[in-house]
């Protein structure tokens, strides 16, 4: 019990701050008489949610699905591209240049094109999520694969290890902390991509809910969708964070973490 109390300290402080903000917000709206279509009080936002939880759940699940799909495809493609860039001079010169120029185009501007190509279903949303999320993954994975102690590579060469063996045994594990740094940025980017996709066209997802509610000046509903997006984004981020502490208990950033996930058993 005591242990549990200590470990949850960070989570408890976050909730405490959120509650304080909500209370101040409620007091401010009531005492200044702010109209609810400008800024609805938290109590009204909560009521809006409890009146139709199934409606919000359905759209949240859709957004979560496109975000997760976009993120995982971006992860696989991004890591593969990074390996290619590090190992091949040709890919370094060509693929890097293409990625940089692609990244220079605001991805929001690509959304209408994806709708023309793929329709109004989940596909264009996933595509935009991939486009936005892949860049930090490629950049950080390339950095991680390149940031290797040359003596480690000498160790591998002195054992006459094949390039694949060197990649899997030394280079890739060494790059994991960087890859996770990229993933933490990418997971939030993927959510942005999914919402942008829903804004442009479609009839599902929290982005669509916001757009529809805006048309009716239904501000409380907009706020519910925003809060849900915040919750969704936070959960996704911490899922990546948890995966990191499970996979990288050895890394300097994970040692002695007090949430109990990354602590190594000591004998």
């Amino acid at each position, binding site marked *: 019990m005591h242990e549990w109390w200590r470990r949850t300290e960070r989570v408890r402080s976050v909730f405490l701050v959120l509650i304080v903000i909500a209370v101040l917000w409620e007091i401010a709206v009531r005492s200044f008489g702010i109209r609810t279509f400008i800024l609805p009080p938290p109590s009204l936002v909560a009521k809006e949610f409890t009146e139709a939880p199934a409606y919000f759940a359905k759209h949240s699940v859709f957004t979560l699905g496109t975000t997760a799909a976009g993120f995982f495809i971006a992860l696989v493609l991004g890591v593969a591209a990074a390996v290619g860039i590090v190992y091949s001079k040709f890919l370094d010169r060509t693929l890097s240049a293409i990625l940089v120029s692609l990244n220079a185009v605001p991805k929001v501007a690509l959304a209408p094109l994806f709708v023309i190509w793929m329709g109004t279903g989940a596909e264009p949303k996933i595509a935009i999520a991939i486009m936005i999320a892949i860049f930090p993954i490629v950049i950080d994975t390339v950095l991680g694969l390149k940031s290797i*102690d040359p*003596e*480690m590579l*000498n*160790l*591998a*060469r*002195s*054992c*006459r*290890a*094949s390039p694949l*063996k*060197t990649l899997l*045994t*030394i280079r890739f*594990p*060494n790059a*994991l902390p960087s890859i996770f740094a990229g993933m933490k940025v990418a997971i939030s980017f993927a959510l942005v991509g999914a919402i942008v996709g829903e804004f442009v066209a479609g009839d599902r997802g929290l982005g669509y809910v916001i757009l529809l509610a805006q048309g009716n000046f239904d501000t409380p509903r907009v706020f519910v969708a925003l809060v849900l997006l915040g919750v969704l984004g936070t959960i996704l981020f911490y899922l990546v964070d948890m995966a990191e502490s499970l996979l*990288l208990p*050895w*890394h*300097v950033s994970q*040692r002695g973490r007090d949430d109990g996930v990354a602590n*190594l058993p000591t*004998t």
Partner: protein
Amino acid sequence: MTDPYIRFDHVEKTYPSARGPILALKDINLGIAAGDFVSVLGPSGCGKSTLMKCLAALEPITGGRITIGGAPVTEPPDNLGIVFQRDVLLDWRTVLDNVLVTAELRGLDKRAHRARALELLALFGLKDYSDRYPWELSGGMRQRASICRALLVDPALLLMDEPFGALDAMTRDELNIELRRMWQETGKTVVFITHSITEAVYLSQRIVVMSRNPGRIVEVFDVDLPKHRPLALRDAPEFGRYSSHVRGIFSAMGVFKGD
């Protein structure tokens, strides 16, 4: 004289640089007998590490030739173990898995080497640390683990590049004793790079003294001390004679300015 196990024949190494090529090794001629303990001793920048990297084929030579057992060195020899200046342990592996990495990298069966790895760790006093991570170990323990890693596949040739340079004096003494004992028991050929005169005299059967600009060999001599060497031997007059001889060579090349 029969052909030595390792042979450097007019070996030359130049590095390209913005201001033209730099001559790192000039006309290196050296023979090393099988089972010998040879130290390469010299001031920093004399190319002693380069010499070792060329022998391991980690750096290509630009002139002459190096042979091991009569065969020219073009790729890293398969009976080779290397201990680097830094321990280069892999942070994400336990000590045991770090020792086993040389078997894995060679494509050998990891499980078949487990017993040998544990035996080596016990020999170097790391028995209780096999499941620890490198960051939980002291510098001396880390370097011991990296020696175990190099010895795992029982290489005939062990190359050591200033392995104890970053350790404190006491740990260094301990490791000198352990290394000397290991060499006496196994009869491996050891090429040991160092800038410490005491370390070189204590450990070696032969010493190769190098000078810099360009890196070259200035003298090679045998160390005729008893095979069994307690630390106290370092206070003996015959030990002192070897040390002062080397110091004399260094003074003559202007290493100890203001002495």
